[in-house]
């Protein structure tokens, strides 16, 4: 069984080919270049260098959100196009779950967080028990300070991962009262290899969808929708 995994939900563009046993290929770039230009050339390059025939791919795993709205759509449209053309199922993985899975096995609580601007993050809380990742708090948009209060109340050691760390480092340093560490550089951002590894678990439980079904979970409505809802509410 081979999985092609794609994560373009943040600044990082990351693609991987993996099976149940190993990561066969992974290509990760953290640059300012637009995913629209880099993502497919990276996938093409990875197939060429690994000499894996495209026909051997059985599943396409994709970071299903949250993240940058445009980044999510580029990754999802790519996955949908591949799934349609190959007639293969898709595995949609919550972005924060995949980041947390990257630090598999650490003690205490894992907090993955991505910047959602205005002192907010998209965050999820996890714990590793008996070789499985358990979700303590499902991914959601949350105020950084509110999240930290929750972590302080839990009182356990925290491992932080995701690009939210860089943005809110000073707040974390100032406000977190428990023991904590920042994940090292090879696991502190979105990695398609982690996404693929987690996808294996989904496939075992047959949690797959069709290419047509895939839509990103933005976890936020558009600005126009929000303003309209507020207007309707104030008129009511």
């Amino acid at each position, binding site marked *: 069984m081979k999985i092609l995994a794609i994560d373009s939900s943040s600044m990082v563009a990351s693609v991987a080919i993996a099976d149940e046993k190993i990561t066969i290929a992974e290509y990760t770039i953290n640059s300012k270049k637009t995913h*629209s230009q880099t993502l497919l050339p990276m996938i093409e390059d990875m197939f060429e260098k690994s000499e894996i025939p495209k026909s051997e791919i059985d599943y396409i795993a994709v970071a299903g959100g949250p993240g940058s709205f445009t980044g999510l759509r580029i990754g999802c*449209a790519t996955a949908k*196009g591949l799934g349609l053309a190959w007639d293969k199922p898709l595995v949609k993985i919550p972005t924060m779950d995949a980041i947390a899975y990257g630090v598999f096995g650490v003690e205490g609580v894992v907090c993955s967080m991505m910047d959602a601007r205005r002192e907010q993050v998209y965050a999820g809380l996890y714990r590793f028990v008996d070789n499985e990742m358990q979700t303590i708090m499902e991914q959601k948009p949350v105020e950084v300070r509110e999240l930290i209060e929750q972590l302080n109340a839990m009182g356990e050691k925290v491992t932080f991962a995701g690009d939210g760390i860089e943005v809110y480092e000073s707040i974390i340093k100032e406000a977190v009262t428990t023991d904590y560490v920042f994940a090292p550089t090879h696991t502190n951002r979105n990695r398609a290899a982690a996404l693929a590894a987690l996808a294996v678990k989904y496939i075992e439980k047959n949690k797959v969808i069709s290419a047509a079904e895939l839509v990103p979970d933005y976890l936020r409505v558009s600005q126009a929708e929000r303003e309209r809802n507020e207007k309707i509410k104030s008129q009511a």
Partner: protein
Amino acid sequence: MQDIKILAIESSCDETAAAVVVNGRDVLSNVISSQIDIHTLYGGVVPEIASRKHIENINPVIEKALSDAKMTLDDIDAIGVTYGPGLVGALLVGVAEAKAISFAKDIPLIGVHHIEGHICANYIDNKELEPPFICLVVSGGHTHLVVVKDYGEYEILGKTRDDAAGEAFDKVARAIGLGYPGGPKIDKVSVDGNPEAFVFPRAKITDSVYDFSFSGLKSAVLNQINAAGMKGEEINVPDIAASFQKAVVDSLVTRAMTALEETGFKKFAIAGGVASNTAVRSEFEKECKKRGISFYCPSKILCTDNAAMIGSAAYFEYKKGVRSDYHLNAIPNLKLGER
């Protein structure tokens, strides 16, 4: 000669569309999923909502285009996709999807200019039409007077300096309470109006005989409405709409006819959303006939945003050997004739 079958994808604004076109002229399928209902709630196209709708709709639309054409991707020779101009987030959905399908099945990819697509809609409905000719592209986002020198070769004679013609329709329609989308609504109420009831300005651009301007006209209409409001008079909506529409049509016709007279071309075509306007079609037909010029226009369905026109444009590029690589990006302000 072997038939060339192109799967085309279009997502530049608020229609998610896919089509299968043979040899640039024969449409085997033309699927359009319109988002107009949702954008009507906001009085115009909301880019983020349009992008979200595209990603929901794109696979079923492509699958239907293939099944309507009784084909699979294995029958397809090339994939054409709109990569500009348009809303960048919306374009990116189609571009990413097209690149993925092209890569997955090793089918050549061709990035298509949206306006070029509109022009090529004429090749679908007018099988005998061949370049050279003059084409006026008028839509919600564009007003271009173009010499089509050859397939895929264009010279822009004039364009709008401010609002696109369709944009003026939308703004005026909103001001007189007709709502979105303005074009079809003004077209409809104008039938009962007197186009001579108000005299609105026809803007002239001092340094160009072919450029357009519609913002002055739009302001004049808004002033008329405000003035009536101040005096407590009721406005006659059909009269305002008909008079405004006449002013737009006059501006378009004057420049196009000047271009035909100056250049000596004997063929003229219109394209784009506004080309489905009844007054635009009938006025151009009449003026062309007067001058012995052959007039062409696409059927109404091919005037709106669709993928069949993209499939036609992609075919002529394909024949010239044009291919896009996987670095193809969405270019929101792509100029006609640029790659």
